[in-house]
């Protein structure tokens, strides 16, 4: 069962991430009163990019992207999607935190090899932005782990099915709002699009990528979108469950031998929740201009950090 999950999870995450990229281009077009590309346009782009010639700037230039891609694929295996989680009994949230840093690190290694000034600016912005959102993210995760008294993300999801979503439960409300505030920075959408600002630094870290390198970078971006949204849904929106009634229904169905259907339904509910969160992020993306890097860090270290810290204090007082 676990092996099937390990084989199946990365393709599912890739399809969802690619669907999100196509959907974001489509919704952005509709908001701007355009028709927009077909929803399969990112796949067409990737097919084209793999058939182009490409220029490499050294071994690390290619290996860095592969490191970043591999890191994001491994993170996907630790995230429960609905009821199933391939690697459920090892590490949990701490491992996810460690592995998530591989994504900007691989891009930084690869960009350092390219020796383009725009790449250097983009990479430095990426790492500074990571520094900006890691502080509130760590506080939020600490609050969640303290409240549920576990580091296992599977247990956090299971507990939410009996006591209700974390976002609605009062002690974790502030942490959830803080996560919503930093979610655009994790996904890299518009108020925090400064990493790939095409108008000022010629699309930043990916400026020297062409052909298959750009295709791998696009695939990694799809995985990044999936991870950012899935972590929020798992921690604060109760994963694949919609309340105690559905849990009872699920246990009845499982005892009747229909476990596959339950897994599929929870996966579907999980996907719908991800869709809602991501569409909200696209709406924010559509209306806001781009911040400068010092404005972004100032914002991230001010409001989300204050909210997350207040949430952490509340959780500590309740759980003492």
């Amino acid at each position, binding site marked *: 069962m676990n092996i099937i999950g390990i084989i199946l999870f990365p393709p599912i995450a890739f399809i969802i991430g690619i669907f999100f990229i196509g959907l974001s*281009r489509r919704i952005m*077009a509709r908001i*701007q*009163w*355009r*028709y*927009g*590309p*077909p929803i399969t*346009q990112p796949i*067409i*782009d990737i*097919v*084209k*990019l793999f*058939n*182009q*010639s*490409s*220029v490499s700037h050294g071994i690390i230039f290619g290996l860095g992207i592969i490191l970043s891609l591999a890191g994001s694929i491994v993170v996907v295996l630790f995230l429960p999607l609905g009821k199933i989680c391939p690697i459920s009994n090892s590490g949990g949230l701490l491992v996810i935190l460690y592995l998530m840093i591989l994504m900007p690190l691989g891009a930084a290694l690869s960009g350092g090899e390219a020796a383009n000034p725009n790449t250097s600016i983009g990479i430095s912005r990426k790492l500074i932005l990571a520094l900006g959102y890691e502080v509130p993210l760590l506080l939020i995760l600490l609050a969640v782990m303290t409240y549920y008294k576990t580091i296992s993300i599977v247990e956090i999801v299971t507990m939410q099915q009996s006591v209700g979503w974390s976002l609605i439960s009062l002690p974790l409300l502030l942490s959830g709002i803080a996560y919503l505030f930093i979610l655009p920075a994790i996904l890299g959408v518009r108020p925090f699009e400064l990493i790939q600002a*095409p*108008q000022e630094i*010629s*699309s930043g870290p*990916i*400026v*020297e*990528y*062409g*052909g298959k390198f*750009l295709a791998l970078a696009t695939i990694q971006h799809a995985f990044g979108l999936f991870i950012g949204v899935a972590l929020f849904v798992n921690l604060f929106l109760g994963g694949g469950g919609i309340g105690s009634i559905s849990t009872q229904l699920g246990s009845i169905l499982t005892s009747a031998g229909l476990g596959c259907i339950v897994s599929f339904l929870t996966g579907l509910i999980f996907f719908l929740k991800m869709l809602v969160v991501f569409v909200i992020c696209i709406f924010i993306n559509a209306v806001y201009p781009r911040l400068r890097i010092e404005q972004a860090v100032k914002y991230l270290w001010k409001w989300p950090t204050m909210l997350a810290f207040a949430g952490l204090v509340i959780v500590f007082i309740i759980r003492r």
Partner: protein
Amino acid sequence: MDRNNFIKWLKAPAKMGHKYSLHVVYFCTGCGIIEIPPSITTRWDAERFGIIPVATPRQANLFLITGYVSVKTLKAIIRTYEQMPEPKFTVGFGSCPINGGMYWDSYNTIKHLDKYIPVDGWIAGCMPRPEAIFVAVTHLWTLIDKEMANGYKRYRENYKYYRANQEQLYGKVEWPPLFPIEDKDESGPS
């Protein structure tokens, strides 16, 4: 438009990919660039055909030269063209890149762009309307289908000719040759 023809995708994915995912470098040389913003924004929306502007030549496969080409700009055009990954397509926009246009007697303007880089198609007019870009793209699709959009192959085969023209213009060209120039005549038949 056969973008949704699944059998064609299975037969020739590379060709279909090149057709329906044209990433464009708009080379803003002259007045022609003013026709580009309407074509990529709400009024004519080029993105529904998969055409998006990109910020760097490494990611592009269509090169649109909009307006007259001065001698100084041509350097940047050649270097941008040589950095693009193959297969790459070039389209000259407006009458100035074709034959000089209204700058036909200028001392500082290139009269025939296709002496210096290969051009796959022209859009005539002064100025062409934004619809002309879509007509040109439709023609480019036909050319890609029939494998006649082979400017990058011509550049590789006749690189000696293009390089000689560039050297004739600039005296000495600052950048190294993209492809090796073999001198068959001097090496002799031995």
